[in-house]
């Protein structure tokens, strides 16, 4: 029997038994819906991380020299933790050495940051992320001054108490006022606002507009790092290709300064957007694995339901099978008829699931900051899974139908 004939038969069967078919489909539909939705969300998160997080938080072609990694996935063992705590801290001298060794075109900045309390005459809002940083930070992190100015070389050298604030900080502490020239206090010390940053948005719900930047040499440094150590030295290479070279140069400088023998591992960390993306890949793997549990359950339940429905169908249609056999249907014709029927059911379920999953992804994209987007491969996978589940679940019932004795089958009620 030709395939399309079997498919036509399957559709006729589904049309006759709409309600039963609906219940048959529901397992596969839910499974595929979650598959599509999960993959879309993870996919969307991936784009988000690559485009927004990597670029906005870390900077393009940028790496940060740290005492130990800031971003970690999974558990850090206490042995590792202890090793990290024994590492030498970063100093201003390290930063100077790195600056001197950098290839031309590379940017650098010292960044010492922490969450601190702030007050103005108008408001005391939640904590802000304060950076005591060298001026290079503005260019590296693409912090655009909306109005006002960044600090001058003189202010940097003198350690003047001036501050550039994020747009949200401006709104919170200086409601309906022009913050330029006004005073913002950190730990009681007054800072003059000299600039307001352009709005940057948020990453994973954390606002990038709740930060303030003061000169590295200003008293802010005492606040963000009471002992005077440096948290991170940020380096930006001019091109992606120059990034590796810059990282090598910095590694060499740091190893020399820490007097490491060739056999000893680095006692500092270089965090780049690439390493962050590696971390993200690990997260993504866990997310996809975790996200696959629900679809897998749905598909298994779907397969069991389909197998049951097909067994019932074979029992109900025993006489039909007898008639078909008496008219010349071979075993493989009967087998194909029921396999195609269960595969058609299952693919139909998958198709509905793809539609619902797409809708779910759109809904999530609308109500959350995640730009969920349906991956084409997940649609293909869903159709393949639908067919696979249908065929797998149909094999046993179909072979039972195919093996029926025509005489017995013809006598069935």
């Amino acid at each position, binding site marked *: *029997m*030709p395939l399309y*004939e079997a498919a036509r038969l399957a559709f*006729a069967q589904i049309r*006759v038994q709409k309600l039963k078919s609906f219940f048959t489909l529901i397992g596969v539909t839910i499974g595929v819906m979650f598959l599509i939705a999960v993959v879309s969300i993870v996919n969307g998160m991936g784009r988000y991380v690559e485009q927004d997080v990597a670029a906005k938080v870390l900077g393009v072609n940028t790496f940060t020299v740290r005492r130990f990694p800031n971003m970690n996935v999974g558990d850090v063992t206490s042995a590792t933790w202890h090793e990290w705590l024994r590492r030498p801290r970063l100093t201003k001298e390290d930063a100077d050495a790195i600056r001197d060794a950098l290839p031309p075109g590379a940017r650098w900045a010292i960044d010492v940051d922490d969450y601190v309390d702030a007050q103005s005459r108008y408001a005391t809002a939640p904590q802000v992320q304060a950076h005591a940083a060298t001026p290079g930070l503005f260019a590296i992190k693409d912090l655009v001054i909306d109005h006002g100015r960044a600090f001058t070389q003189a202010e940097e050298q003198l350690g003047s108490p001036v501050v550039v604030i994020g747009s949200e900080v401006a709104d919170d502490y200086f409601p309906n006022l022009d913050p330029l020239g006004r005073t913002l206090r950190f730990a009681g010390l007054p800072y003059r606002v000299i600039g307001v940053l352009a709005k940057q948005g948020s990453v994973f719900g954390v606002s990038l507009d709740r930060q303030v930047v003061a000169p590295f040499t200003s008293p802010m440094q005492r606040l963000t790092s009471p002992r005077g150590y440096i948290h991170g030295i940020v380096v930006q290479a001019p091109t992606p290709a120059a990034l590796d070279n810059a990282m090598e140069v910095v590694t060499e400088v740091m190893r020399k300064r820490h007097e490491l023998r060739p056999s000893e591992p680095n006692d500092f960390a270089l965090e780049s957007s690439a390493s962050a993306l590696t971390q993200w890949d690990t997260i993504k793997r866990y997310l996809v694995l975790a996200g696959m549990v629900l679809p897998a359950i749905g598909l298994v339940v779907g397969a069991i339901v389909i197998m049951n429905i097909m067994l019932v169908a074979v029992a109900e249609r025993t*006489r*039909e099978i*007898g*008639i*078909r*056999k*008496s*008219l*010349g*249907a*071979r*075993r*493989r*014709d009967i087998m194909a008829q029921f396999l195609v029927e269960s595969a058609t059911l299952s693919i139909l379920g998958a198709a509905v699931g793809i539609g619902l999953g797409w809708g779910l992804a759109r809904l999530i994209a609308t109500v959350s900051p995640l730009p969920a987007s349906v991956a084409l491969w997940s649609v293909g996978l869903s159709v393949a899974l639908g067919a696979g589940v249908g065929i797998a679940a149909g094999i046993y019932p179909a072979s039972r139908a195919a093996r029926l004795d*025509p*005489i017995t089958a*013809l006598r069935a009620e």
Partner: protein
Amino acid sequence: MSTNTFEAPISTTAERQAIIADHGAAPGEDWVIVTRNLVRDYDMGGEVVHALRGVDLAIRRNEYVAIMGPSGSGKSTFMNLIGCLDTPTAGEYWLNGELVSTKKDDELARVRNREIGFVFQTFNLLARATALHNVELPLVYAGVSAAERRRRATEALERVQLGERLEHKPNELSGGQRQRVAIARALINNPAILLADEPTGNLDSSTSEEIMRVFEELASQGQTVIMVTHEPDIAAHARRVVVLRDGRISTDDQRDKFAAAHLSV
């Protein structure tokens, strides 16, 4: 009942005996059915039931034969074997020049498809399919294209005066109309034999007569018809009547002789 001007030739006893005695040899193409010592045993939970104890039967092309017998005579078993729905325990069965008694499941399906047209007591139409689709079914398994199937099925239904009922489902048809759909389906592949199993068992007497007229006409056109029945007056429509008893042929007579013996009209 209409009488036919054309009487299909009936094989004589001597001819039949000569064909049957020639064990293992393919019968001439004039012989559509030859069984030699056909045996069918059933194993009923350790106890062997001898349903057929050696049936010798030869039917020539164009014969119209009724097979009779009381229940338990092996009539149904014999009809299943003739219809290639079952395989014998021993003996030969030649159908249209082919030895089918040794064939396997799927080969038998092909033989059923090409050589046999079934007409059942309970019609055995697919309830959800239209008359047209029911008639098309054997062609589906014969691998005929959709357009060709439709054309031939329409023709077949027109031949049994159901040209106006192509898209009707079985439950929208009368008993006689259903049986005519079944007859159209049985004949769609131009089978070697039309094999009818109690074709009037579910019909009232006037509808039965109507179906018998169809059979009569088919036989007069040269179609080999084999009809299994337990009703003597239905059997009397055939030209030759074979009576089974206890798994063997007890009588094999021409209609006139059978009628004289069994019908008290």
